[in-house]
């Protein structure tokens, strides 16, 4: 479905954030993308959805293929039309628009006359949003805003969804709620690239995963393997187990591997 070959991204003509990242998501598959702050996860998503130019970033190398369509350096609306939609980090709903208008804005690229019906579908799926459909979206709770942000992206009828930190700033109860929603999306056959700090959640939802560090993929494999990987356990699943001697930590070297 989605194939990234050797992607390199440079900001402000000097800062290289991604240095040769390759990644693949099959049709209908969910893939987790893990990594610490500043690893380049959001940059990868921006490169995919054409949002780099407004951040003064440029794709200097590599290919981005959504099936047969080359996505690199395309305008965002063409990428959305091709079937790839991003839910940005921090929800970024239109706070002063009504809940319903938020959803209708998500359907902007569609030309078919079924927007009305889809709107009703989502309101059945999210009764909390239906209750507030005429209210200003800024008054929704954090969890409801996240649901709205995801539903808004789904209104574009994507074949593939990019989720950037959907659990950010939510209580454990709401995180589980988001997890449930992601499973519903999976059942619709929509492929998902899930960027998460919450590695436990991401690896429980995804079939495969990649770990991005310093702009490179350092580990990748099936979710099961990643869950059992001692490095992933220590750094992403909080499972260091016993206290570590600092002298030991100094000599500790992480396994690094090149994909391409």
């Amino acid at each position: 479905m989605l194939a990234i070959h050797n992607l390199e991204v440079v900001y402000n003509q000097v800062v290289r954030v991604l240095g040769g990242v390759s990644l693949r998501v099959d049709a209908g598959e969910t893939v987790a993308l893990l990594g610490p702050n500043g690893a380049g996860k959001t940059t990868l998503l921006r490169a995919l959805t054409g949002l780099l130019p407004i951040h003064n970033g440029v794709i200097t190398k590599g290919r981005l293929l959504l099936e047969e369509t080359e996505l690199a350096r395309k305008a965002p609306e063409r990428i959305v039309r091709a079937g790839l939609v991003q839910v940005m980090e921090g929800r970024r709903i239109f706070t002063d628009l009504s809940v319903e208008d938020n959803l209708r804005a998500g359907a902007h690229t569609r030309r078919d006359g079924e927007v009305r019906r889809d709107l009703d579908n989502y309101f059945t799926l999210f009764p909390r949003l239906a209750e507030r459909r005429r209210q200003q979206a800024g008054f929704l709770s954090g969890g409801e805003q996240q649901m709205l942000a995801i539903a808004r992206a789904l209104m574009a009828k994507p074949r593939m969804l990019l989720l950037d930190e959907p659990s950010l700033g939510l209580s454990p109860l709401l995180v589980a709620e988001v997890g449930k929603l992601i499973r519903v999306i999976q059942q619709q056959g929509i492929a998902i690239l899930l960027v998460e700090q919450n590695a436990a959640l991401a690896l429980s939802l995804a079939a495969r995963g990649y770990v991005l560090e310093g702009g490179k993929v350092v580990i990748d494999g099936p979710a099961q393997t990643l869950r059992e990987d001692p490095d992933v356990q220590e750094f992403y699943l909080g499972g260091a187990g016993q206290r570590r001697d600092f002298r030991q930590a100094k000599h500790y070297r992480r396994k690094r591997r090149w994909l391409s």
Partner: protein
Amino acid sequence: MTDLVQLASSGLALGAIYALIALGFVAIYRASKVFNFAHGDLLAFGAFAMVAASGIGLPWPLALLAAMLATGLLAMGVERVILRPLVGRPVFVTVILTIFVGYLIRTAILLIWGSNPRGMPTPWEPTATVEILGAKVLLGSLAALAGAALALIAYFLLMRFAKLGLAMRAASADQESALALGIPVGRTLGLTWLIAGMLAALAGTFLGMFPRQVEVNLAFVALAAFPAVLVGGLESALGAVVAGLLLGLLQVLAQAYVNPLLGHFGHNFHMVFPYIVMIIFLIFRPYGLFGEAEVKRV
């Protein structure tokens, strides 16, 4: 009573023009947080375009349409060529640049049409009146009111119900988020300027109809609509319209009833009056009549 009707009619006509101007400001401000200081010059350009269009023999409604379109396209061009490359820079830079753009337009007007005042063509006698409640009301006043009302209703319908209006509202709420959903933010910004330019031309046409003549300094009248923008709330289209009507009315009433009370000091006091209202608002209700305190969740 007759006096009051007479004053109210001309006050509302002036207010309707203020509302059109204020709405142009607000449309652009909402879309890009830019306060467009070139708006007055667009208005003057629209008025001259109207004179020119009927000068070549176009019937009045067609000439008005042509003038609106020409001004709208000029505004769209300004946005595309001068302002678009600055997207992402501090808004302050763009705002200062609009002052410069205003001077460019003013110079262009002087180059094309010269500095002589012209008369604004009207399809009726310029002094034709209608009797309402015993008062003689200028036909031009009624036309201004009706024209402004039509334009304002069209604008609100577009923003509320059309797909384009929704895209404009979304883009003004969060540009990057709108881009991510496939809304072509640049194009909606251009169309916002087109609409603002058309509103400016309409306002310029009606403004030129009253004894005031069409000349470059028509641009300064846009500044008189400035209090309406602030009193209404910079972000509120409805506020701009209500405040525009209100201030037009207040200004005319102040001219008739307050100026004489102030003796020599009262000469032209009505011109200052809207600003006094504005200052009172800035002190007690700085976000305006309908301006909303921002919704924020942390």
